[in-house]
């Protein structure tokens, strides 16, 4: 097994066991690999692969949502101990996230934890936010990617209005949706006009990397 996959495998076992000591040890090892020429992104790749694996196992039914949440939370806490003040790369793509309409923000919290642990800064627009408020924030901030989390079906339908209004304003922000309605109805993201969908929180880092590397005129895609 290549070293990346081996470390990610051990990290998955550690987070699922909620073994903070083991998680810290593995992340220090991966950061040492980075420092020894493994590439700056190596530690982030280990973390991203591990959390994506956890998310995939949730989608297949092997893991529960509580395990995904506790894993992401543990990783974020450990990374905050190891890197209290992450350095922003120059020209970094700006990402924003919102829990649209719904006040329950568990999904958003999990995604934010994963992205924070992977060193991807995100502007949090909060939970229970209306379409009007989101459009206003996007007009001001002009993020490259807006991650939209919903729990209830009516909130998922509101994404359609959100996307239409952003396009009417010629804003280039790509909208990525996620949450229970989009998992229960895998094609719903196309009907609401989103640019992409994530079926589990662990997909977030890969989706962001894929989108920010794309021509913004490109068609929507499932990543």
């Amino acid at each position: 097994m290549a070293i990346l996959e081996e470390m990610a495998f051990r990290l998955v076992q550690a987070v699922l066991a909620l073994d903070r000591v083991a998680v810290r040890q593995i992340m220090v090892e991966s950061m040492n690999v980075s420092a020894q020429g493994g590439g700056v992104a190596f530690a982030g790749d280990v973390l991203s692969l591990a959390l994506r694996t956890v998310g995939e196992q949730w989608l297949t039914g092997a893991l529960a949502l509580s395990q995904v949440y506790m894993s992401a939370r543990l990783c974020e806490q450990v990374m905050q101990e190891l890197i209290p003040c992450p350095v922003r790369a120059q020209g970094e793509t700006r990402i924003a996230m919102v829990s649209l309409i719904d006040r329950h923000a568990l999904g958003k919290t999990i995604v934010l934890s994963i992205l924070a642990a992977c060193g991807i800064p995100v502007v949090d627009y909060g939970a229970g936010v209306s379409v009007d408020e989101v459009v206003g924030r996007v007009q001001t901030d002009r993020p490259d990617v807006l991650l939209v989390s919903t729990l209830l079906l009516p909130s998922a339908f509101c994404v359609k209005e959100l996307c239409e209004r952003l396009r009417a304003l010629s804003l280039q922000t790509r909208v990525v949706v996620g949450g229970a309605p989009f998992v229960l109805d895998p094609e719903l993201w196309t009907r609401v006009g989103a640019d992409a969908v994530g079926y589990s929180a662990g997909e977030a880092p890969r989706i962001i990397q894929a989108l920010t590397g794309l021509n913004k005129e490109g068609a929507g895609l499932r990543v």
Partner: protein
Amino acid sequence: MKTVMTAMQRVEAALSHRAGDRVPFFLLFTMHGAQVTGCSLRDYFHDAASMAEGQRLLQRRFGHDCHYAFTYAAAEMEAWGGETLFVDDGPPVSAAPVLRSWEEIDSLAPPRLADSPALQRALDLIARLQSPDVPVVGVVMSPFSLPIMQLGFETYLQLLYEQPERFEQLMRVNIEFCVEWANAQFAAGATALCYFDPVASPAIVPRDLYLRTGHRVACATLPRLHGPVATHLASARTLPILDDLAVTGTTAVAAGNGEDLVELRRIARGRFTLVGNLSGVDMTWWTPEQARAETRDLLAKGGGTGGFILADSHGEIPFHVPLEVLDAIADEVRCSVHR
């Protein structure tokens, strides 16, 4: 020629694992009642007479086999001091959690039902809907799932994993409230209750954790209730814990969204009735023809020998489901009598 049963007789046959004149079906309406009575959602949910009229109008139109006395989940939170947010096109939702610190659990006591206008309205609704011919189905949040609203989802998960003693204290209080609230509904005339317990699903917490927590809670709660109960996981997965649910005292179990009824029936082995599992999410985009096809499929899988009630998977028909889709479902069920 088969004798035509009343809805009550049909549902009783299904719960007793006997064949009726046809498979009973539940259309679990909440918000649609406002549509047919011409009320705003806020006004509708604040008036038991309107809610009763809405249920009766819908039952007359679609011919389904229950009146649904569920108002909205946040009504229970109002009893605990919480606020509810009403919107124009979706279910009322609970506002901020009522418990803002761990320490509040230490001195928590269950609220008095008599002090809650929202719960008194629900009891009034049940009383207005009482009938010998149509069952009245109420809803109670399980003590194990209620903390999602009491604490917020994230804080509750942290409690579950990190504060076992406070979790036990919270469950003690919640069980007492649940038992009192459920039995008040039976006393008011409810025929059966949905025991709403989404956190029990292995999609939300792993089975081993459920067995140490929510399963113990269900086993301590359900035997104290004065009527039949259907355990409902709000469309989440049930299959890995069906055998566990069977020993809680539940009379019925609602299948998760997309779960295979044939497989569930094999595991149920007549120990409980299955309810479900038309996809409420998919209903929003079905054509009437698709609705008929899905209904036929589930009727075939659920079987006509009792032990099955056709219903949606979530426990509440989404407001965006067109009435003609529901007409198609109802018509297909009625046509099944003649096959």
